[in-house]
């Protein structure tokens, strides 16, 4: 072996070595640099599993801690059709067992699978049942069918059904807020989902320490209402029974705490069961919310209380102010009359309220300029949304600038025609009068409670004085005389308690804008009158079988009796003052 040949061999080896190294280097760069991202992602996909951490939407509680809306999980049952048709557990066999649990027709389930495979032989996904509850889910899971899978979804359930359904509202199929407090208080209730990624072994077990939470789930906060669900139920039940008895198109009852302005019951008829929204939505979309907030109407004679209270506060009249009330009163450009013909009466202001005389009230109201009267209405909270801010809440309409009122409007606005209010606004007027002239902010939500127990968004609780204490007291005294001496005296009497009421029968504007033959009847009152604690305000629209406020009287009496009983209000132990009604 010569020296030369050995050198040549060495060179060849070196060259081969460099070539091999170059190949390795190329591969290294190719993997680590050129395809790095794609390969990384592929590797991640193979072992790491991203998962959504469900944030839980907040619950809704009533004022006594009763659960009204609750977040739950519902389960979709899905199947892999392509596996099912080849499986040892045949679709037919499985469908019979699933059908027994879900109540589905087994043939339908088989058809779902067969159709899916027919449409696409590789079909790997089909719904067998949607949104089943935990019990059904557990039963189906126990069947251990290999080609059945499950998906959990957050959903909402309302244990008390239609109790306060008008207020709570509901969520849609994707758990998104759609109506009522669910919608208007969504900022309190809403949760946000989080995300986590973990590595799993071949058999699907999470590898310890591999979990990375990329985004924390945030649970929603709980919403606390002022509503009392038992009273709310009783009120709804009573309202619905009488509304049907009298053939009313719709009705509302508002129960408000006088000292605090809290709404303890707001009943609507008809109303929605948030568990079964379709049942109402398919027949009557307008009954999905709360008309007590969203349907302003001409209040009629219950409004006379406000006019009388304003006159008393301004010192322009007393309960004993005399007025001659004919059947018809027609000063220039105006023409008002009472609901039924009567000979001319000599009435005091108390008597005007007792007889609900439009002509008497029209003359008394003229003591006060229209602008001042409207200022009082605004101070009582009319013409603007209440502090509740309910979804779709209406302001009511005080008929614009009083300077533009014609002579007729000037008179009708004294007894509640030619302007509109909502049922809740009217309850608030009576609350103000019952509370010594101090209007408390109307509240439906008492707060938003975070997980650590801190409550935010609580109502302010500071009232505003609208009329003097004396004017308020005198107004209540007059209303007591209406209750004891009016034509509904026997029907609104609650043994042991002093009650103050005022009725209303207002003409209803039909679609064409003209007054129709239908009426909105109402009755609002306070009890116990010597120290008012609660307002009950009843409104029935177009009760065809009894077109007077007599239709509202039994509802008022039964609801007020229940209120006094439930809140242990001690009987009055005194009798109502006896004011002169005529002279």
């Amino acid at each position: 072996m010569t020296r030369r040949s050995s050198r040549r061999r060495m060179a060849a080896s070196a060259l081969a070595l460099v070539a091999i190294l170059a190949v390795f280097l190329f591969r290294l760069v190719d993997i680590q640099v050129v395809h790095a991202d794609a390969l990384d992602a592929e590797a991640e996909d193979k072992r790491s599993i991203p998962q959504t951490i469900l944030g839980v939407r907040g619950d809704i509680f009533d004022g006594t801690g009763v659960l009204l809306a609750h977040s739950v999980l519902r389960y979709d049952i899905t199947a892999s059709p392509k596996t099912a048709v080849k499986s040892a557990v045949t679709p037919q066999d499985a469908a019979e067992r699933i059908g027994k649990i879900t109540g589905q027709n087994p043939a339908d389930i088989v058809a779902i699978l067969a159709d899916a495979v027919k449409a696409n032989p590789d079909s790997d996904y089909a719904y067998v049942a949607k949104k089943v509850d935990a019990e059904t889910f557990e039963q189906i899971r126990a069947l251990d069918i290999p080609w059945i899978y499950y998906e959990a979804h957050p959903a909402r359930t309302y244990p008390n059904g239609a109790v306060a359904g008008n207020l709570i509202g509901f969520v849609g199929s994707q758990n998104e807020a759609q109506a009522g407090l669910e919608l208007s208080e969504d900022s309190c209730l809403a949760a946000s989902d989080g995300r986590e990624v973990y590595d799993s072994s071949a058999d699907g077990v999470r590898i310890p320490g591999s979990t990375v939470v990329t985004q924390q789930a945030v649970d929603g906060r709980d919403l606390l209402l002022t509503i009392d669900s038992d009273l709310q139920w009783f009120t709804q039940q009573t309202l619905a029974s009488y509304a049907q008895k009298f053939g009313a198109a719709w009705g509302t009852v508002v129960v408000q705490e006088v000292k605090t302005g809290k709404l303890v019951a707001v009943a609507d008829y008809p109303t929605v069961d948030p568990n079964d929204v379709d049942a109402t939505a398919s027949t009557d979309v307008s009954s999905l919310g709360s008309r007590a907030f969203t349907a302003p109407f001409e209040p009629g004679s219950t409004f006379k209380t406000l006019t009388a209270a304003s006159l008393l506060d301004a010192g322009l009249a007393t309960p004993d102010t005399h007025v001659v009330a004919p059947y018809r009163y027609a000063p220039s450009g105006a023409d008002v009359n009472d609901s039924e013909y009567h000979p001319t009466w000599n009435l005091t202001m108390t008597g005007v309220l007792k007889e609900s005389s439009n002509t008497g009230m029209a003359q008394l109201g003229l003591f006060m300029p229209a602008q001042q009267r409207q200022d009082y209405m605004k101070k009582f909270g009319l013409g603007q949304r209440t502090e509740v801010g309910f979804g779709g809440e209406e302001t009511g309409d005080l008929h614009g600038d009083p300077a533009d009122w014609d002579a007729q409007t000037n008179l009708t606005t004294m007894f509640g025609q030619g302007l509109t209010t909502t049922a809740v606004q009217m309850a608030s007027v009576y609350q103000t009068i019952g509370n010594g002239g101090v209007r408390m902010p109307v509240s439906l939500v008492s707060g938003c409670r975070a997980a650590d127990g801190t409550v935010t968004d609580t109502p302010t609780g500071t009232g505003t004085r609208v009329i003097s204490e004396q004017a308020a007291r005198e107004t209540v005294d007059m209303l007591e005389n209406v209750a004891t001496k009016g034509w509904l005296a026997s029907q609104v009497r609650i043994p042991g308690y002093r009650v103050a009421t005022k009725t209303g029968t207002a003409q209803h504007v039909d679609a064409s804008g003209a007054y129709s033959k239908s009426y909105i009847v109402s009755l609002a009152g306070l009890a116990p009158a010597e120290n008012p604690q609660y307002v009950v305000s009843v409104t029935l629209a177009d009760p065809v079988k009894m077109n007077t406020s007599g239709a509202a009287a039994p509802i008022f009496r039964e609801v007020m009796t229940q209120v006094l009983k439930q809140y242990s209000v001690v009987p009055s132990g005194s009798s109502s003052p006896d004011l002169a009604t005529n002279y």
Partner: protein
Amino acid sequence: MSTALATAPLRRPTAPGTTARPAAPVAPPRIEIAPVREQRRARPRAVYAGVVVGGLGALMLGQLFLSIALSDGAYTIDSLQATQKEQARQVQQLTEDLGRLSSPQNLAENAEALGMVQNANPVWLRMSDGAVIGTPAPAQGAGVLSGTGSQVANHLLTGLPLVTQIPAQSATSGQPAGTSAAAQLPLQGPLAAPTTR
């Protein structure tokens, strides 16, 4: 190392000029490196190697067992989480059942099915002086639902039987033994009342 090396004493050659002894074969002088005591001691021993290898082995075993324990824990966690999920579902189901059963619609219907009526005439007993406020009168007949039935819908109650519609057999079988027997015993003598002052 080299500086520590010492040499063994050399055997001196006989001085020149001395009487030569009979000539004997002279062995060539031997030179060797002799380690000092410390060096002998510093020499590695087999036991050390054993310790190192054994230690490494123990470490690897430890790691193995730790890994076994960890993955065993993972399976425990996994099964416990599955149990927790199942129990959460049970809690949810029971909460839903309780909510449905305690809804006012259900309570009222059951109460009235059992014959309860409401008394719309509240009467109060004042504790301070025992005064009766109001005029006691027996309830007159009707319940809240009577005549009209439940007007407040609750879809969740669909298909739920009233207590009066549940067959007696299944109603009693749900009770623990003993209470049902006791409930059937006729009451003897006056009702026992606590003595409260």
